[in-house]
């Protein structure tokens, strides 16, 4: 039995410890905001946090999450996370939306580390998150808007 804490809720899962965290979250816990798209850490759609640090859940064995706090898009509640989600809404970033949970998790993580990211910082932090709709222009803008709000209204 694997004891996990996901978004503050305890979960006991009787599954193969090598099962990727992604499928534990989706198929056994039933949280579907985290998406499967590539399975080999090439696209970032499955990004979640382990103790606040972003990981690609498609290649992370669920056993790695034992004893750590897992945060998914459904549980993202940091000020940076909320600022990113608000900016995403304000700038209407989403199109098909499938990659956006991962984009938002990565963007919030960037702002956790760096409250005033430059364009180069944004490109570097976000280049592992693919968007086939190419919403990249608005993702850049939205991260700047969120950063501005976090640092007191100046964007």
């Amino acid at each position, binding site marked *: 039995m694997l004891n996990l804490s996901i978004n503050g809720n305890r979960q006991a899962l009787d599954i*193969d410890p090598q099962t990727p965290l992604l499928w534990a979250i989706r198929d056994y816990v039933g949280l579907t905001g985290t998406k*499967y*798209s590539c399975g080999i850490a090439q696209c970032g759609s499955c990004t979640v946090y382990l103790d606040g640090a972003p990981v690609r859940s498609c290649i992370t064995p669920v056993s790695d999450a034992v004893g750590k706090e897992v945060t998914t898009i*459904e549980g993202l509640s940091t000020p940076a996370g909320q600022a990113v989600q608000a900016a995403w809404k304000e700038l*209407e970033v989403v199109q098909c939306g499938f990659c956006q949970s991962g984009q938002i998790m990565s963007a919030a993580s960037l702002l956790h580390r760096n409250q005033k990211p430059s364009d180069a910082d944004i490109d570097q932090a976000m280049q592992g998150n693919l968007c086939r709709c190419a*919403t990249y222009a608005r993702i850049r803008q939205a991260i700047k808007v969120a950063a501005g709000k976090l640092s007191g209204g100046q964007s």
Partner: protein
Amino acid sequence: MNTKQIINLSRRRFVAGSTASLVSLTLGILPSVKAEQREAGPGIAGKAPETAGDFSPNAFLRIDADGMVTVISKHLEMGQGTYTGMATLVAEELDADWDKVRVEGAPADAGRYNNLFWGKAQGTGGSTAMANSWEQMRRAGAAAREMLVQAAAEQWQVDAAQITVSSGVIKHAASGRQAGFGELAELAAKQPVPELIELKDPESFKLIGKHIPRKDSLEKINGQALFTQDIQLPGMLTAVVLHPPRLGAKVLKVDRKGALAVKGVREVIDIPTGVAVVAEGFWQAKLGRDALTVTWDDSKAFDKSSEQILDDYRKLAQKPGLEARKAGDAVTAIAASDTSIESEYSVPFLSHSAMEPMNCVVRIDKDKCEVWNGEQMQTSDQHQIAGLLGLDPKQVHINMLYAGGSFGRRANPAADYLLETVHIAKALKPGTPLKMIWSREDDTHGGYYRPLYLHRLRAALDDQGDPEAWEQRIVGQSILKGTPFESVMVKDGVDMTSVEGAANLPYEIKHIQVDLHSPDLPVPVLWWRSVGSTHTAFAVESFVDELAVKAGQDPLAYRRKLLRSHPRHLAVLNLAAEKAGWGESLGRNRGQGIAVHESFNSYVAQVAEVSVRRDVISVDRVVIAVDCGVAINPDVIEAQMQGGMGFGLSAALFSELTFKDGSVEQSNFNDYRILRIDQMPEVEVYIVPSAEPPTGVGEPATPVIAPAVANAVYAATGQRLRQLPLRLS
């Protein structure tokens, strides 16, 4: 649920109208567009319907007792903003409160929910959603508004003419009475459906043309939006399929023991497309598939390589093909000219590679089948599934979910991944919900690609350097051959989707000849965002640039001269050039390129600025001008221009699907490369103000970027790149 439908459906009429067969699909997309527009489209704005009851507002909206307006979208939301657009049209004429409008997907029903440009077939494609719905949805909203007003007049015993509606509130100023939609919904349902409907003067639009929020944003931001991948049903099983490594190979022998030994694996099932492993969840099914041992019979498998195909096409391009356009005598004029020029352009196979790999959920019972899918072609899929199960199409209920991208892949007349799912579910205990998920590798190998194409272009210039003759020979597989669309959209052997963007060359040239070879190959092919224009725009707009260079003229001025009688092309061309600062020197290793192209009745021009460093092409800035008629939602249009261009930029710079001895060489995003954020240029979008009926925006930005970038690379380096993806040597 306390939903009160404000208008009772005339069920009998709709059922009678929903018996469309696959044959009705053959009314086609492109050829019928113009005719349908005349009959059901924008040409009769503001007038009554031609025959009473040829549309019915109730099929498209419902208002509940709380005043919530639910707009029922006949079109798929796959990112292009359709749900928002459909709701905008209804809410505008209804004078609804935008915050109290929600959208849900319509069920499959060719009688009620057909695409007006496609005859009696329901589907989303060809950038037609807003164009075909422009009047229909506004009428739906206007009819409902009128019935609410009549209900208020009856309830308050006042003159209907003195009642106003604004932002979801119905008012009679003289008596000081007012009510929300919900309070009058029940009474409104009893009013007669108005026969004569007056639509608003565009001057009084409150939602159309304004910046209003998307309807699908919030749930896509907080992880609550439901895609096919997210459907969870009690007792549901998950399947993955082992497909043959080479196209056309068949299963010879399966050793199931390893798979069945994996914990959680329930069944291993032979299906026509391979071997399916059914398990409790995806990961177990995948482990089960890894443990399968299958011997394949390759005797009839595809064995060609992309290089070989290209060579074959090159030879074919030396021979005349079927005529797609002929004006004057281009061949003779070119033979007689001493300033002729010849070039070959080619593009590879491409996978759609939507972020959500193909998947489908079905539950089959004795006399019905329920489907959950990001549905791009509802009624065709419904017929295909019904055919496989021996059911009446009405017994196949399709739940339309959001699609995590599609770009044409989920609009397959062959319904490939849906039928694969049905084949598996059919072998399970009746009533077992089954989710079939393709891995990314399955999706990349799954076929239905944008075909590989080769273009051979020749031209002759006159004394002024203007082209007097243009000959374009196109070689590539037909997308429509063998589909129900063939009978209408393949004319005298010419697949319209192979030559669109070339046969309708807008440039003023005396002698024009465009012809086509459509060789057969076993590689399944399909439309890919902007279809024929994905290759014709690249070939045409690059070659025009070559002519301008040969003539020693500015590429913008050259195009302007040849487009003098095409005002909509000219307007976008001039706007993009002006905003981009066309002609400014960008310095060493940098250059500007321009291209203009019409697709799906929308006009797009793009100016690309590129830098070249150590043979790496970086696109720094792209300026886009678009004329799509009335701009229903400028914010969505801007997003589609940015994203459509970005989608095309993937193909311009990175994406390439190649065959080696019958097998696809790429498998995932590591080798089938698509654009990443650090490769996305700065983008500016300008919309030409227009009162023309709205046309599509989902596709038209995509085909323009490859030639704009190729032309910019030429300006920067002097190297003319004629093959996609663009590579400097």
